[in-house]
């Protein structure tokens, strides 16, 4: 069968954010894949150098909408080390609680997405309905549903009272039952299993060599988890286990995530029940002396690393952000090869992509010449306005526009 190239993205229903993958197909089988990033590059690292530490706290929070707390916490604990500030224990507990609740919401979201990509919308609807419970808990704690803004240098911004504690425990109970159901019954549906099992295989050796992170590598049997390897916040006091699977496929990644959900419920209950008393934050200085720090954080998608260098002013010299998705791209390309077209969305979704990476771009393919080019969005806007002006003129001059052919 002849080879042909199919573009997946930058705009594609399976992708929630813009990224371009070029697939070389042979029939329904993928022979080669090629990646192009930067469709949503916001120049965040450059921007961070022009803003002070407090402003950057909210900037880092907006790197990603799903794991907003991870980037903010990662940055925050880095800056606290630079400031030589010891956050209060109650503050750290609240911070960790929000982190684990965020992991729950992210994993439930992922389960839904996996169901949707596999064409199983019922599963998608159920998991997203259940996700509302944890979203409500997060709203009760932080006041907002997406950008919690619970972090500040030296602790947390919002306190938890007894009523909130009770609501959190009630919500967790519901979620626990539902997750058990998904683990025991949800993943026994044969049509669903058939779509997940054996898809997107990557061996342990390749996953390690390609520096994969998070559930992607844990599903290949490597127990790499920053929470255990390099404990931050209060993770060294928490009872939890690193969940792994050895099936190396999308099903393994799903199982790892569901098991992690169970661990997170356990951790959240522990955190709420053992919340220490005391202040929630300490006052932070504005200026930071010259130093450098590496801060790691286990985001729902994997290891998140921030390198912060300060220069003695109230603005950082350099902030390097590496989101977990970037680390998983190399492994994804490997997984896609020799898979089916039908598996592209699943494999791609399995790393839980969160494309957080100045100028927006549009790619146009001229149908007559087959020529491809990438243009700036400002140019596209100009074109579209011209096109519509032309079109409205045409139709006002002639009753029947030549562009529309309709036999009725």
């Amino acid at each position, binding site marked *: 069968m002849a080879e042909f190239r*199919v573009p997946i993205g930058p705009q594609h229903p399976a992708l929630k954010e813009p990224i371009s993958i070029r697939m070389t197909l042979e029939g*329904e089988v993928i022979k080669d894949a090629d990646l192009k990033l930067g469709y949503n590059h916001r120049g965040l690292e450059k921007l961070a150098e022009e803003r002070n530490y407090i402003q950057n706290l909210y900037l880092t929070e907006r790197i990603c909408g799903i794991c907003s707390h991870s980037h903010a916490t990662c940055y925050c604990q880095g800056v606290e080390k630079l400031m030589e500030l010891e956050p209060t224990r109650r503050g750290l507990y609240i911070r960790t609680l929000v982190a684990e609740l965020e992991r729950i919401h992210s994993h439930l979201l992922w389960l839904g997405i996996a169901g949707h990509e*596999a064409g199983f919308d019922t599963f998608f609807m159920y998991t997203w309905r259940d996700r509302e419970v944890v979203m409500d808990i997060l709203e009760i704690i932080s006041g907002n549903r997406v950008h919690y803004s619970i972090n500040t240098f030296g602790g947390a911004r919002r306190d938890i009272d007894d009523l909130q504690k009770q609501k959190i425990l009630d919500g967790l109970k519901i979620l626990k039952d539902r997750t058990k159901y998904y683990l025991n019954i949800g993943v026994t549906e044969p*049509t669903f299993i*058939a779509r997940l099992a054996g898809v997107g295989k990557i061996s342990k050796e390749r996953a390690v060599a390609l520096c994969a992170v998070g559930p992607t590598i844990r599903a290949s049997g490597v127990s790499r988890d920053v929470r255990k390897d390099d404990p931050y916040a209060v993770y060294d006091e928490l009872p939890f286990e690193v969940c792994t699977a050895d099936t190396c496929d999308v099903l393994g990644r799903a199982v790892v995530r569901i098991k992690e959900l169970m661990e997170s419920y356990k951790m959240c209950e522990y955190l709420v029940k053992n919340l220490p008393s005391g202040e929630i934050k300490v006052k932070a200085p504005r200026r930071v002396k010259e130093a450098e720090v590496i801060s790691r954080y286990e985001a729902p998608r994997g290891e998140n690393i921030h390198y912060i260098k300060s220069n003695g002013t109230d603005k950082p010299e350099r902030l390097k952000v590496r989101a977990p998705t970037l680390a998983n791209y190399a492994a994804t390309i490997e997984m896609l090869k020799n898979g089916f077209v039908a598996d592209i969305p699943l494999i791609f979704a399995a790393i839980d992509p969160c494309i957080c990476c100045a100028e927006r771009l549009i790619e146009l393919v001229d*149908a*007559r010449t087959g020529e491809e080019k990438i243009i700036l969005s400002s140019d596209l806007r100009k074109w579209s306005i011209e096109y519509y002006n032309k079109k409205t003129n045409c139709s006002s001059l002639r009753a029947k526009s030549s562009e529309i052919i309709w036999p009725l």
Partner: protein
Amino acid sequence: MAIVKTLLYLFVYPGLIFLFIYSTFCEWFDRKIYARLQNRIGPLHTGRAGILQPIADFIKLLSKEDIVPEKADKWIFSALPIFGLAIVTTTAMFLPVWHFSTSQISFNSFSGDLIVVAYLLTLPTLIFFLAGWHSTNLFSTLGGVRVLTMLFGYEVPLLLAVLSPAILADSWRLAEIAKFYQTHLVLLLPNIIGFFVALVSLQAKLERVPFDIPHAETEIVGGTFTEYSGKKLAFFRLMADIEMVVGAGFIASVFMAGFPGGVIFGFVNFIIKTLVIIFLLAIMRALFSRMRIDQMVNFSWRYLAPLAVLQLLIAIILKGILL
């Protein structure tokens, strides 16, 4: 006068207008059931409980910009939705609901119309393939190829499944098959395997989950309909809705003893039986995840076709014993 009657028959009842109203109602019913199974509300605001939502969707699509790709064959591209609509509406004429008796042979009830309906129901699939092929879009082409691949999977089981009731009833005429089972209600039971095989095949024919492979949005965007927009897409969607009604009516007349009781009761029968089938189809849609094309072909040849053959055997043996 005969011309007026025929025109009324073609355009008003049971032709276009009735089918339009009833198929949009069926779409609403299907969507509502699907939503309730997923703990959602479904259509809500247009009309009472959203009952006018499919019509609103249809009108909205009619008013949208209509784009024809530069490289596509413009005439075929535009004509396909009309052809498709014409085919499924024609098929509706052959259902034994509308006022005719079994004794008389008329232009829409004759010996062998079972085969004609089965054949006419295959044509929309070809229309989908041609639509995908003439769009000249990569995703549409992929979708078109998938349509054909699937056709080979489900067409044989469907035909085999509808053959066995016909064998038992000893007729190739839908009205006569229905009449036979109205007098021998017990004989519907042996056909239960065939009924489910036909139901699954109908789901595949209608390209709904788990068989929505040709237009799986997360994989190949819109599949066959990627380049279709505006009026043409509206007609395609209407065509799919009518196909659902016709398919449900077809199965009901073969496996559920048709629609007895004259003009009014027969009609009520028709509504109830098609809605039951659509309800079953909606449950099936909510219950499974989309299959991959290789899994689908594998499934239909490994399970569906043997089951249909088994049903055929049962029918033949039963016929030998009983009649």
